């Protein structure tokens, strides 16, 4: 019955998923985006429903209306940030402040929605943490982020009173650098706290997950990511400078690409830069995911995640390239490809215990009753 080693596997296939994906995409377009929430439910149900672990499938049973609410909210923020910036200087800044202030609430409701709607066998996952607790846990780093943002803005206004555009640009560059170094400490601390909070609050049935991660390791990973990013920047800049110097013809090509005048040049440049800048992203993602998941425990089960940065990076950019070349038709296939890779790197060890819930059954878990209004999906 019980084994020491449990490998999750994906049982679906791309052609089946393709049909689901494309029909729902069409419906989303024809309904001007309304159906996209239901499409998300169908897509997610297919993907979750084909992940088999220890003989049983996972299930997503989320309500599409909650997803629709979350998407409307996300779009309001996006519009305020993207379009508001063209007409007013205050709106995008206010949007960022609001997002930082609302972050613990958004995080809690999103996690609660996602987890309490994920089931395996007759039990659901859950996120019983309160919004209050999330605010307490994240107060310090978020307060520091707001403080540094405010300092930045006040100083900017002070300086900007009598200065030329050039001076203000130079000052902006300096301030951005400063902000970068502040974020050097704040970003990993915030992410560390978020991971700690979410993984330690997550439950399966009445069994809580526990994670043991330390801040030093996170700072280390973050520092290395910055190092990778800087290396990539130096390499690309050097590369372009060299090309420019070697021949005038090629430099013309790059200039055209930058101005969007030549399709081939632009495509090549885009590909090259994507390749380069996906590397730090892949490094950060893989290293933190490996670290956090491998430090997670559920009862006597230990999790091991062993993704490789290079393989993940290879999957990332080949997937993107395929999606572009096929004009998006390959997206379902690339999604499954990535999911299969991730699952193949995940193994769970330990004797499988019998899990118990709160005697309420699968379809009436806690999440649904805690005010439907807070149930939003914000895509964290």
């Amino acid at each position: 019955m019980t084994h020491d080693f449990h490998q999750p596997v994906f049982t679906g296939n791309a052609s089946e998923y393709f049909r689901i994906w494309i029909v729902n995409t069409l419906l989303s377009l024809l309904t001007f985006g309304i159906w996209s929430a239901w499409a998300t439910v169908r897509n997610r149900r297919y993907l979750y429903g084909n992940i088999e672990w220890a003989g049983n499938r996972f299930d997503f049973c989320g309500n599409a209306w909650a997803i629709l609410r979350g998407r409307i909210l996300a779009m309001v923020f996006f519009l305020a940030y993207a379009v508001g910036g063209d007409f007013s200087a205050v709106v995008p800044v206010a949007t960022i402040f609001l997002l930082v202030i609302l972050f613990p609430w958004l995080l809690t409701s999103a996690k609660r929605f996602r987890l309490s709607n994920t089931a395996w066998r007759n039990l659901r996952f859950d996120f019983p943490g309160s919004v209050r607790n999330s605010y307490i846990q994240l107060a310090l780093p978020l307060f520091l982020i707001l403080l540094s943002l405010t300092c930045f803005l006040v100083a900017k206004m002070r300086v900007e009173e009598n200065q030329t555009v050039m001076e203000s640009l130079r000052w902006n560059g300096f301030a951005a650098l400063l902000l970068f170094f502040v974020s050097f400490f704040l970003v990993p601390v915030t992410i560390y706290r978020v991971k700690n909070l979410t993984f330690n609050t997550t439950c399966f049935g009445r069994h809580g997950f526990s994670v043991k991660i330390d801040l030093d390791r996170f700072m280390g990973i973050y520092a290395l990511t910055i190092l990778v990013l800087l290396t990539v920047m130096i390499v690309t800049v050097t590369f372009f400078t060299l090309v420019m110097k070697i021949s005038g013809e090629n430099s013309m090509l790059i200039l055209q690409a930058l101005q969007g005048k030549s399709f081939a040049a632009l495509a090549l440049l885009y590909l090259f830069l994507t390749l380069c800048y996906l590397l730090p992203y892949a490094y950060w993602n893989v290293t933190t995911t490996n670290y956090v998941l491998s430090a997670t425990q559920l009862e006597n089960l230990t999790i091991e995640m062993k993704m490789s940065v290079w393989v993940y990076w290879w999957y990332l950019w080949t997937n993107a390239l395929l999606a572009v070349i096929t004009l998006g038709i390959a997206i379902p296939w690339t999604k499954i490809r990535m999911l299969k890779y991730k699952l193949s790197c995940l193994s769970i060890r330990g004797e499988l215990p019998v899990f118990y819930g709160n005697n309420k059954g699968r379809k009436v878990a806690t999440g649904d009753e805690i005010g439907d209004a807070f149930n939003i999906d914000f895509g964290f």
Partner: protein
Amino acid sequence: MVVEGEYFKPGTSLGVPASLKAQGHSFSLVLANSSRFIDLDTLVISQRLANVPRYLCFPDGSMFTSLQNEQLDNALRSSGILPRSTWIDYFESGWRWTLLALIVIPVFLVLLFTIGMPLVAGHIATLVPETVKQELDAGAIEFLDELVFKPSSLTTERMKALEERFSRASRFYPNQNKQVLFRDGGAIGANAFAFPGGTIVFTDQLVNLAENDGELLAIYAHEIGHVVNNHSMRNLLQSAGVTFVLGWMLGDLTFITDVVLVGVPVLLQKMSYSRGFEREADQFAMLILDASGYSRSCFADIIERLSTQLSPELNSETSYISSHPAPGQRVAMSRAAQACSDLLSGVDGRKKSSDGLKPAVRQELLDEMEIEPPFRPPTPEEIEVDLSEGDYHSVRKVSPTYPPAALIRGLEGYCVVEYTVTTEGTVADPVVLEDQCTSPYFTEPSLEAARKFLYKPRVENGVVKAVPGVQNRFTYKIVKPGEKPINPPYRKTE
């Protein structure tokens, strides 16, 4: 009928093999050594989705799950309960709907981006107030002055002369801010810029590149075409719109597909919108050149000269992703029989050039826009003034020029002009009655036409008298192909 599956007691992950037996309308769950009757009314059954297992949830919190979707559906159908939402499963499982989606999605997106989005953006762009646009201008120019431009080295006389030439063309769009600025372009070189609020910047390099003022007028007209058509605002709104639509409608994108699949189409769309705007501005330039009596070749000449300044690759017609149409196309579109330096005297020359307009539209434009030589009021010696006893009456009426800016927008309306009929029978002090003029576009052409009117003056008891307060209504109506033109085109209300 039997459906094999697994049964879970309430609140536990421990499953036991079980089967569902359907006999007519009665369902029962059979376990290893027991069996229970199922009340179908209280059962919650998950929707069918491809091969994903189904869940039958009982009110006590226990659950039966099965991978045998087909058997389960048959059993439920036979008992009269059809599972919810079968229609979506029906669409998802057939290949012909997949094929339909593969055809409809691109068509829908193309229609949305080529017709829907520009239409909506065009409407919203007109809602942006003039003051906001002019503030945008001021900000942008301050920024460019600081970073790129240097003060112009042109002489004041040269600037004045150009401004005057431009202002003659600007009577066709009276309600726009028409500030023209000259700057040393620095690294930018020969170029001209139109800002949303109507400010137009010429670089010294461009002014020096042009061989005659007609060429500069062509550029000016092109830039004004951007302003009149609200291109900057529309571009801004359309770019945001594409991102919004792709993000919102397609949704659920991961980081990478987000960047690539939204980023790239947005960029391509932006470029193609930009080319569309350039073409629109080019057409506007043609109209202005025609209306101000210059050959369209002026435009061809300057574009040709500008494009030889750029590298040859940029001239290739194949470059798909470009912010401007290929120079070759633009030159071919505007090349006319007359050289730029010849001021046109009649309509004939213009008919030879092809401008990418539909033949019917072009014919309309040509019919409506008669070019007339600069007008001066005729002296009494030139015409024989009828000084016989009687009230004044009209001797000659002239049609106004249809303002191109109104024409390409399909704007119709009227304008009432009030003036004095002098003792010589000419028109003096014409003014437009603001509340009886539907658009500022019609002000200038109406006044101009009114000045050309001739009357038999009023003679009372042998005394010639001037008559103040005479009104004439100029009606602007675009004649559709096949429709009978109004002849005489303009009604008088005296």
